[in-house]
C-alpha cells in the first residue's frame, strides 16, 4: 500500500496509524503565539509614533474567530495581563479590553451562529478598531488630534491584517494538531 501511494495512511496532520497529537503542543500553541505577538512589537524602536498594531490582540482575535471554543471565555484576562507588562499601556487596560472583546465575540456568535469569511472580517475589523480607540483613550496620555492622526495607520493596518492573521493561525492550528506522539 505504502509503495503505491506514500500518503495512503496519512492525512494533513501526518501518519494516522500509531500516532496521536501531542497534548502539550495542542494546548500551549494558541497561548504561546498570542504571548509572542505581545512581545514582538516591543523590539521595535518607535520614537515618533505608534508603529505596529497590537499583534497580541490580533492573534487573540484570529484564534478566537478561526477556532471558536478553543480559548475559554476568560482567556482574555491572563493574556491581557501579560500584554500589559510590555505594551506601555497602564496595567489593567488590556485585561479589561481583551475580556470585553472575548465577551463581545461570544455574544455576536450566539446571535449570528452562521458566519462566513466576510462577516468574520467585518466583526474582527470593528472589534479591532474599537479596541484601537479604547486603548488610546485609556493610555493615560491626553489624546490630541495630532496623536489620533499618527495612530490612524495602526487602525487601518489592524483591519487589513485580519485575513493574513487568520491564515497564519490556520497554519499554526495545523502545526498544533500534528500527530507528533508515538503510541506504543
Amino acid at each position, binding site marked *: 500500500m505504502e509503495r503505491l501511494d506514500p500518503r495512503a495512511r496519512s492525512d494533513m496532520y501526518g501518519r494516522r496509524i500509531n500516532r496521536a497529537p501531542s497534548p502539550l503542543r495542542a494546548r500551549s500553541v494558541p497561548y504561546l503565539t498570542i504571548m509572542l505577538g505581545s512581545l514582538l512589537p516591543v*523590539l521595535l*524602536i518607535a*520614537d515618533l509614533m505608534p508603529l505596529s498594531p497590537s499583534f497580541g490582540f490580533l492573534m487573540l482575535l484570529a484564534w478566537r474567530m478561526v477556532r471558536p471554543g478553543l480559548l475559554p471565555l*476568560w482567556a482574555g*484576562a491572563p493574556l491581557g495581563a501579560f500584554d500589559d507588562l510590555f505594551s*506601555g499601556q497602564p496595567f489593567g*487596560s488590556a*485585561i479589561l479590553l481583551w475580556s470585553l472583546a472575548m465577551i463581545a465575540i461570544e455574544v455576536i456568535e450566539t446571535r449570528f451562529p452562521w458566519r462566513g469569511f466576510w462577516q468574520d472580517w467585518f466583526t474582527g475589523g470593528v472589534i479591532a478598531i474599537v479596541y484601537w480607540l479604547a486603548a488610546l483613550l485609556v493610555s493615560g*496620555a491626553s489624546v490630541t488630534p495630532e*496623536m489620533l492622526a499618527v495612530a490612524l495607520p495602526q487602525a487601518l493596518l489592524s483591519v487589513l491584517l485580519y485575513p493574513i492573521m487568520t491564515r497564519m493561525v490556520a497554519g499554526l492550528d495545523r502545526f498544533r494538531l500534528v500527530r507528533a506522539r508515538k503510541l506504543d
Partner: protein
Amino acid sequence: MAPTSSRRSGFSKKAQYSLFTGYLLAATCALLGLALLVLSLRQPSAFEPVRGLATDVVAPAGKIGAVTRSGSQGILAGIAGYLNAGSQNAELRREVEIARIRLAEAEAVKAENRRLKGLLGLSEAATKPIAVARLVGSSATSGRRQAYISAGASDGVKPGMPVLSERGVIGRVLETGRSSARVLLLTDSESVLPVRRASDNVIAFAEGRGDGLLRIRLVNLGVNPLKVGDTMVTSGAGGYYRPGVAVALIAKITPDGGIARLVAEPGATNYVAVEPIAQAAAVEELDEAERPAPARSASPSRKPEPPSAPAPAPSTAED
C-alpha cells in the same frame, strides 16, 4: 460555518452551568481589569516591580535587536555613501575647509569662556554618566511613547534621571527594573521639559504632542521672538536636567511659541547615557514638600513632575 454544536448548551444542566460560569468569570475578569486600570492610572508606580521584572527578561533579546539594527543602519549608510561618493567628496572637502575655520573660532571662544568663568569663580564640573546603555525596545503598539534601556537599578539608575544621547536629550527614567529601565521619551504627550533658546534667555516649555513633534510654549507671552531654525536647550529649571543640553530645533512658528523637531531621535541612537539628577538635593526637597498634597492623583502619569512643579520660578525671574 456555524460554531461547533458541542458549545450549545441545550437541555444539559452541566453545559448550561459551565456556559454561565464562563460568562461570569469573563465579566469578573473585566471588572478586575477595570479596577487595576483605575489604580494604575492614579498610581503609575504601583506595578513597577512586576513590569521591571518583565522588561528585565526581554532586555537581552532587545539587545540583540539593537545590535542588528545599528549594524543594518551601517550597511545602508555604506551603500548610500558608495553610490554618491564622487560628488560627496568635493562637497566634504569644501565643508572641511569651513569647519577648520569655525574650529579655530571655537577655540578662541572656549579660551575666552574659560577666562570669564575663572573671573566668575565657577568650577567646571563635568557630569559623569551613571550608566551607558543601549535602547532595547519601545512601546510600539501604544499611544504612549516610552522606551526601554538596558541598564537598571543594579547600575544605579533611579526614576527621574535624565537620559541623553550624544546629540541631546532623549527623555527621563520612569521606572527601573534590575537590569532594565523604562524611559519616558520627549515625544510622549505627557512629557514637559523647561527649555530656553540657546542664543539668549527666551524661556519656554517643550511639550510632546504625541506625533513626534514638540510644542514650544513661551512662558512670557507678547511678541513671539522665536525664528525657524532656533535651537532650544534645557534651561535647568526644575533641577532634573543640567542646563545647556540640546533639545529641539524650531520648525514652525505659532502664536504662542512654535513647533519643534527633536535634535536627538531615539530611533537613530545606539547608545544613551543616564546622567544623575542635576540638582538632586533640590529635587528631593521639592518631592518631600509635595508628598502630603492630595493633588497628586489628579495628574496621573506625570509622576515626578519635574517641569511643571517649579514652573513659576523661571517666569518670576524673567519679570
